[in-house]
Each structure stands twice: as C-alpha cells, then as structure tokens.
C-alpha cells in the first residue's frame, strides 16, 4: 500500500466534493439543520393544552373547580360552550384536547352529599398527550375533592386532619426535564449516519453507475488504497460535523456536557468507521444510486432514528425488538452520547457500549474490504 496513491485518491474525492456545491452544503448545513429541527421541533413536555368546558351547573362551586383547572399550567381553558355537542365537535376538529363536562346537579350533590362525577373527554389520538392530561386532571380533581370532604366534615362537627402526601421528585441528569437535552445528543448519530452511509454510498455508487470506477481500478491503485482514499475525506468531514454539533448543543441549546471530549471523539471515530464501512459495502452491492440510497437509509438512518434509543426508549419495545436493536451499532453510540453528555459516566461504565461498537467497527471494515475485493475479481 502506498500512501502517495492513497492520498491521490483522497485528493480526487475532495475535489469531487468541493466542486459540487450542493454536496458541500450538506456537509455544513445538514448538521446545523438537524440540530435546529430537533432542538426546537421536539418538545414532549406539554403545557397550556386547549380545553373546552361545558358547565351545566353554572354555580359558584363549579366555577371554583374550573378555576383550579385554569390556574394549572398544563391546561388552558379556551372556551366555555353551552351544549354537549360543542365539546364533541371541538374534539373532532382538534380545537380542544380535553373537554370538561360538569353535571347540572353538581352543586346540589355537593350540599346534599354523596359522590358526583365530572366528565373529562380526552382526545386520545396522541396517547402520550392524553396520558399526561389525564394524570394532571386527576391530580387537580383529587385535591379539590379532598378539600370538599374535609370542609363538609368540619361543618358537621367532625374535625379531621387532612391527609397530604407530597412527592418530591428530583430528576437526575436532566434536571429541568428538558426535551432538547434528551434529544440533541442523539442527533449526532443521525448526522453521522447521513454523512457516513448516505453520502458515501451515493458517491461510490455513482462511480459504478458511470463506469469511472472501472477506470480507477485499471490504474495501479490497489483496492485497499481506493477504499481508504475514498473514505478518508468523509471521515474527516464526519469528525468535523461532530465538533460542529457538539458546539451547537453546548453553546446554543445549553445541553450539559459532563463527560470528556476525548471519549466523545473516540466513540465518534468508532461510529464513523462503522457507518463508512456500511456505506461502502452498500454501494458495492447495490449497482444504482437509487438502490444504494434506499438501502443505506434502511440500514443506517432508520435504525439510528428508531432503534437506537434516540427518541423511543429501548426498554419499552417488545423483547424481540430489543434484541434486534443490538445488531445495529447506532444503539451503542447513542447510549454513549447520552452518557457522555448528560451523565458524565466514567470510562469503566462506558465499556459496555464501547466494546460492542469496537467489535462492529472491526467486523464491518473487514466485510467492506472483502466485498470490494470480490467485486474486483
């Protein structure tokens, strides 16, 4: 293997990238775009959701109850309607996420005694939102009911101490339950999948499609030199993008960074090798750019998005799928990123993810080299 020849191939590839302004722009703009998209676009902490109310009673008591909902930061009472269909229509339209219906005999039952039910109609198309809404509404209701009970007992000569349990929750690693702190570290894995697998597989598939790869092969350059020379520029770009993303995460979105930059660089380099090898392999087996891009999407970007714990918790998936996530390297990288950014775990704790990632890097590099050799023969 000659370094001169390797660098010559790399130089040619760099020229390709520099000449094509669009490819160059993806290298710089794409990481920034993805960071901003997920940083601003994803917020799962719901506040001020639109609520419609239908107060059939219209009494002092029912208004008191509604005030409790109004003063809760999670609800925003946008409208009071005077018909049941007003609530159902708003849910159908999507104008309201919840409708509170207070029965006509609400205050009467409160003074006479006995249980009374208030209805909460919730748009559960989005189960996550619905779940949180129901939880918060139950909380408001229990607080109200407990007060009513104690008051009534006092009025009837029974002095009783109210029972109160306070839950003091501390959320570690992400103290403000900030969605962006949870999402953004994982975006690095997405960016690298795109740069590594997507872009590489397309570039190389193009050479096959146009026949210029055969020309390259007929020169004295060896297979290894072609492969390394082609991938080296993308490796550098990928690492540059990691640095850009980390800067945006820390500087712009104020995601905590508690680990060391060295482990970030090390694990990113490993993952970069993984995606580059995958991209190269795909371009060798898929003849056309269309096929290469679709397959690259399917085996790198999609797993990085869905099966890595980037957004959806792996522990909550069906057990069979949990096992499948283990064969996608993105899982280990995303786990490393979250630990490095949020937890600042010591190296010993990272080993559980670093070891499989290293193994994947070696294995895939080998597979990519083999497949390329075979294609040449």
């Amino acid at each position, binding site marked *: 293997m000659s370094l001169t020849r390797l660098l010559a191939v790399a130089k040619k590839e760099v020229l390709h990238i520099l000449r*094509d302004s*669009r*490819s160059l722009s*993806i290298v710089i703009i*794409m990481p920034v775009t*993805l960071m901003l998209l997920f940083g*601003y*676009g994803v*917020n*799962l*902490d719901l506040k001020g*959701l639109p609520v419609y109310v239908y107060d059939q009673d219209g009494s002092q008591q029912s208004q008191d109850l509604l005030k409790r909902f109004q003063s809760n930061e999670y609800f925003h009472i946008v409208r009071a309607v005077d018909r049941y269909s007003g609530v159902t229509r708003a849910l*159908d*339209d999507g104008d309201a996420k919840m409708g509170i219906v207070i029965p006509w005999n609400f205050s009467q039952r409160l003074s006479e*005694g*006995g249980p*009374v*039910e208030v209805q909460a109609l919730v748009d*559960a198309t*989005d*189960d996550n939102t*619905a*779940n949180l809404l129901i*939880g918060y509404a139950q*909380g408001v*209701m*229990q607080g*109200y*009911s*407990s007060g009513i*009970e104690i008051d*009534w*007992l006092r009025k009837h000569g*029974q002095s009783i*101490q109210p*029972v109160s*349990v*306070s*839950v003091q*929750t*501390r*959320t570690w690693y*992400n103290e403000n339950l*900030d969605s962006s*702190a*949870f999402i953004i570290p994982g975006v690095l894995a997405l960016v690298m999948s795109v740069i590594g697998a997507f*872009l590489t597989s397309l570039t190389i598939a*193009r050479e096959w499609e146009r026949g210029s790869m055969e020309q390259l092969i007929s020169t004295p350059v060896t297979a290894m030199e072609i492969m390394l020379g082609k991938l080296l520029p993308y490796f550098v770009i990928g690492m540059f993008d990691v640095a850009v993303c980390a800067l945006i995460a820390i500087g712009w979105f104020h995601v905590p960074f508690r680990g060391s930059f060295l482990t970030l660089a090390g694990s990113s380099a490993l993952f970069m090798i993984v995606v580059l090898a995958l991209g190269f392999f795909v371009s060798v087996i898929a*003849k056309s750019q*269309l096929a290469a891009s679709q397959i690259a999407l399917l085996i790198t970007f*999609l797993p990085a998005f*869905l*099966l890595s714990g980037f957004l959806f918790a792996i*522990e*909550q*998936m069906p057990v069979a*799928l949990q096992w499948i996530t283990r064969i996608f390297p993105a899982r280990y990288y995303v786990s490393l990123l979250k*630990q490095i950014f*949020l937890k600042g775990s010591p190296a010993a*704790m990272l080993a559980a993810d670093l070891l499989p990632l290293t193994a994947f890097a070696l294995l895939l590099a080998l597979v990519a080299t083999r497949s390329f050799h075979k294609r040449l023969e």
Partner: protein
Amino acid sequence: MLGRLKQMLIKEFIQVLRDKRTRFILIVPPIVQMLVFGYAATFEIHNVSTVVLDQDHSQESRDLVSRFTSSPYFNVQRQLTDSRQIRDLIDRGDATVGLEIDAGFAQKLRKGETAPVQVIVDATNSNTALIASAYITQIALGFAQSYQTDRINRIAPQMIEQMPSVSLEQRPWYNPNLSSRWFFVPGVIGSLTTILVITLTSFAVVREREIGTLEQIMVTPIRPVEFILGKTLPFFLIGLFDVSLIALVGTLWFQVPFRGHIYVLFTGAVLFLICMLGVGLLISTVSSTQQQAMVTAFFFIMPAITFSGFGFPIATMPQWLQYCTYLSPLRYFLVVLRGTYLKGVGMDILWPQMAAMAGLGLSLLTIAVLRFHKALD
C-alpha cells in the same frame, strides 16, 4: 397526443419495474419500515425498573410501596437498605426510578402533617421521566385519598355515606386503550409516502439528465406537457399503490381501526400525492445529479416530517415554528389520516385540510411545471 403519452407511460413503467432492485425498493422497505415503526415507536411506559428504600417500616409505608408493586407501570426490583445504593443503581442505569420513604412517614400522616416521599428519576429520557413522574404523583395521591377515606371511616363511619366527593370520569376518546401504535401507524403511512414519492419522482427525471437520455427524448416530437405527465403519472399510481400497501399492513397487522370513509382517505391521498409530485419535480429542476437530488430531497423531507405533528405535538413548538408547520403538506394529510382512521370524521370536518392540500399541491405543481418548461427550452 394521447398516443405519445401512452408510449411515454409504457416506457416509464418498463423502466421502473424492469429492475429487480427498484421493484424491491417499491415494496420491501415500506413494509419493513411500517413494521419497525409500529413496534418501536412508543411513548408508553410499562415496567419501569424501580428500587425502593423504605426507612419507615410502617404499615403506611408498606401500603404505599405495594401500590407501586401492583402498578403495571412500575417494576419494583429491589428493596434497598442504604440511600447510597439508589445513586449507584441509577448511575449505572440499572434502575430508572428510586423511591425513598424516610423514617417518620407514618407519624406525619397520622398527625395530619405533610408526609414527604422522595423520588429520584433518571431523566436522560425526559419523556419516560415525565410520564413516570405523573404516574408516581397519581399513585401517591390515590394513596392519600384512600388513607383519608379510611380515617373518616374510623372516626365517623356513619357520615361516609352522605359525605360529598368529586371524582373524574375519564373518557379517552378515539383511542380508549391509549395505545401508541394507534397514534403512530396512521402517521407512518403519511411519512413513508412522503419519502418514497419524492425520492422516486426526483430521481426519475434527474437520472435521465445525468445519463444524457433527456436530450434524446427532447429531440423526439414529444411535448413538454406530455413529458411531465408521462414522468409523474406512473409515480402517482405507484404512490397510490404504496399508500394502499402500507395502509393495509398497518390496518391488518397492527389492528388499527379504520372508522371513517375510504373515499375521504382516498381524496386526501390523491391531493397529498399531487403535493409530493410537485415537490419531487421541483427538486428535479434544481438538481443535475442524483446525489444532489437526494441531498435536496433530504432537506425537504426531514423538516416536513418533523413539523407535521407526526410524533411531536405541534402545540408545544415555539410560535414561529408553529407557523412554519402550515407549509408542510404532511401536516394536513396526517390530520386526514388520523381523522379517518381513529376519529371517523368526514368531509364536513376535514374540508379545510383538503382545501389546504389542494392549494399547496396546485401551486407546487404549477411552479414545478413552469420551471421545468424553462429547463427544457
């Protein structure tokens, strides 16, 4: 005119369907993605690994812990003896929730003071932490409620019958089991169609330009309109085929109910496909290589999906971003998809979405055709 168009259509279909890999792309990746999404995409939480440190050892504290043990949302794995263990287990990721009941819990309850429960949640996944915290609060409130009822029952059993109490009757509409799958499956139909139709359309035109066959076609007597129709109609039909395929898999495999009318969904799909064809054509007019087309498509697809309300509620985005979401055709199609699947609503509710898609689609297509004309002249 019709004769030439027919020939063009035949050529396009042969070109798309002759290649084994392209046939593969049209069928396998959409199905795989549908299945993976259906299983992986969930914000539900079940069996969150929980550890408990009960330093009170009272009837009350045991009662509270047993409420966690019997809850499907928590999986109480260990009872600890030392508060340092909690820190260690959460650091290592072996537990997500740590529950700590200090000595004196029962005494405070009996005296009517506020009894604290310390909760530590690993918030690296802020969504899991958010929902888990909501459930923890619900369980604690439920405990307080029944403790109060018990106390009243002891002191004044004759009064409990007459005592007023208010409860919330929750009715999660459209998705009574609060299943994440029901939320995501209709959304996946929309986003997969976006990805597929845009890439296919833009690639089809750019490919001809890249390999030089576009010039060959231009010297034939075919008119630009016929060429554009010939290029887009096949992908329109393929798009419809794929929408039906994905929808069928989603409905039959994941048992998501379809409550609306097929014709409403079909109308929405047609309008949406027009938008996507417009975008695909537009991309092809600004790209000269397939790689450029891919990159440009990616820049459109990512924001279009993120801002569509596909997985992340639009209501929690910053206001300026909420305005941007109106530009994503997918936003409207998702309302149609979820409206017909889960809500079972018809045109009377969905017409604004249809109108928006028709408007966007026509303008996109007009701009694309005008630009295309120019590019051909």
